[in-house]
């Protein structure tokens, strides 16, 4: 009983938002690119590189906000690779994204060595200020993430621009006939997802912490991908799923369970995603054209 009471305390629910922040941001990014028909399993690498760039930018300028800009730039840079190689040159999205993840892991450790002469943890850099809400400290990125949810929803579902993105993901050649430049939209959507994943990285390194640690994204890019699927490619759904997964992380760290090992609780998001994807509870159906490069004049 005591365990159950612990599971639902207000601080625990509030702190879930902090754990959920990178998931919300990267999942929103994922919603953009997947709705446009591009699969992005490189969110992980973009987040990792963003985390590093944030610390670098913050450390060099002494201003954590510049660090945030660096993280967005870093995410954009990696997204540019994915966009050019996969959208423009139509190479395989899974393969290139895997390359980006490996690249991110190698590049960040390389920079740690070259710039700071360390292999594990960077020197400390100024972190973002924290804001107290309901007695819980949040860094501004958490607030940005939550505020972005209705904005992304509005863009995707209430603007012509959003309608075009969604139509491209479902039936690119039909969209093309209507004069929509399929690959330009996809290019932009991939860049947006990179920017958001990079920002998610800043939350990890200079939001919740004040240094970069190698491999600090720890699979969160993939959990964000899971949250996006669990939320059925919808920004509000993705937000809900990200919160749920953030909560799962929070309880696995902060609540001591007598009957389930905390390591197994951390696996819950992944198991849930498989269950939803397989359609055991409310089937998650991806956009139809997902993962397929678009060639004009062919189908």
């Amino acid at each position, binding site marked *: 009983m005591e365990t159950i009471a612990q599971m639902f305390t207000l601080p625990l629910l509030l702190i879930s938002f902090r754990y959920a922040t990178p998931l919300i941001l990267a999942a929103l990014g994922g919603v953009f690119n997947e709705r446009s028909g591009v*699969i992005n*399993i490189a969110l992980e690498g973009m987040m990792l590189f963003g985390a590093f760039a944030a610390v670098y930018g913050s450390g060099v300028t002494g201003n954590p906000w510049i660090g945030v800009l660096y993280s967005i730039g870093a995410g954009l840079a990696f997204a540019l*690779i994915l966009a050019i*190689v996969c959208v423009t*040159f*139509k*190479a*395989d999205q*899974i*393969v*290139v994204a*895997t*390359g*980006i*993840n*490996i*690249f991110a*892991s*190698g*590049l960040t*450790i*390389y920079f740690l*060595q*070259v710039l700071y002469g360390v292999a594990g943890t960077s020197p400390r850099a100024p972190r973002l200020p924290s804001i107290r809400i309901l007695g819980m400290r949040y860094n501004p990125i958490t607030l940005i993430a939550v505020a972005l949810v209705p904005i992304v929803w509005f863009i995707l579902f209430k603007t012509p621009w959003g309608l075009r993105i969604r139509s491209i993901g479902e039936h690119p050649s039909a969209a093309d006939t209507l004069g929509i430049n399929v690959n330009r939209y996809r290019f932009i959507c991939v860049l947006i997802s990179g920017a958001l994943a990079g920002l998610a990285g800043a939350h990890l390194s200079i939001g919740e912490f004040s240094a970069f640690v190698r491999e600090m994204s720890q*699979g969160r890019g*993939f*959990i964000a*991908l*899971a949250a996006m*699927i669990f939320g059925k490619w919808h920004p509000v759904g993705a937000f809900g799923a990200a919160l749920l997964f953030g909560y799962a992380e929070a309880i696995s760290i902060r609540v001591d369970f007598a009957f389930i*090992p905390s*390591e*197994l609780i*951390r*696996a819950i998001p*992944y*198991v849930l*995603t*498989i269950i939803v*994807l*397989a*359609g055991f509870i409310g089937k998650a159906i*991806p956009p139809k054209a997902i*993962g397929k490069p678009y060639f004009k004049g062919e189908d």
Partner: protein
Amino acid sequence: MSELQTTKTDAGGRLINILIELGFALFSIVIALLVGIAFILLAGESPLDAYHALYIGSIGSWREFLNTLWRATPLIFTGFALALPFKAGLFNIGGEGQLLVGGFAAGFVGFYFTGIPGGLHVALAIIAAIAAGALWGLIPGILKAYKGAHEVITTIMLNYIAIQLTIRYGIERYRIGGRQALPTIQDSAKLLRFNDLAELPVVGSLPFIEAFALPGLRLHFNFILALLAALFLWYLLWKTTTGYELRAVGFNASAAEYGGISSKKTIILSMVIAGALAGLAGAGEALGTHHTFMSGMDAGLGFTGIAVALLGRNHPFGIVAAGILFGALSQGGLEMQFVGIPSEIVTIIQALVIFFVAGLQMLKWFLLKQREKGEAE
């Protein structure tokens, strides 16, 4: 893509195709190494020294060459784990997880099963690894075949479930002492290493066998299994009906279905074999390399395997060659670190190889397309 057709072309045409593939692969590696120079210069080091160290540390001597083969072994297996389902049109990103459950099963059986004679114990541990890996391939296979769940996502999720289950929970629950690993396996479960060959009764008296008796050499018998697996896959894919069905499903699943091939069966079978092969990679790491299952022993081998399969053009023999190349990069990276150059440059080069292979593939496709257009006009 066009393998079903190329089987009909004459031997000369096939040879030219192979040479073109090889040319593109080598070209990608050369560009990756050239771009790598920028990263070496940025680190304030001499590219010449760096690549010299890479060469010396990987194929500069017999001993390092054997260690390169040792590094290549798990990569060859995880490369196969991607390639076989790929032939059936599936993307198995789950090599990492399949390797982990295989390694854990092998490490577990290797320590906790006692009193079994040597040969039998190793065999049992290997079989456990194969079974665990196969199970980890079976799940996404079934979900894909019967529920249409996208295998890329399910295998990614299963990777993380495997990490939680084995590295986090499994080690925490079954370790003895403070090390983030299972206890060291029994001697009877250790996979034979090449440098122990000279001490064997009959084999040890063979000529040249002392060439393998090098201290610090970690090459073990999983490498031989990897070569056997390459032969098995080649035979399976191109000499059996099952292989034909597999390629037919990958070529056009609905056409294959009309031709009386069960795509469900084929999908599941390819994923199960892939999982088993990745499980073998884990068995080799646990029983041959580390003599335990430990945190970090996967070291991205599953993901690097994707690059290996890509570079090896998803052909079993190509994958062996690509695996040895990537093994050489990792082994040579150590020497680079010794002379003070960040070994992560190797990881960067590996990622660059992926970008260039993937990009060049499209360039080739584009050129072919242009030529077809020219012919049509």
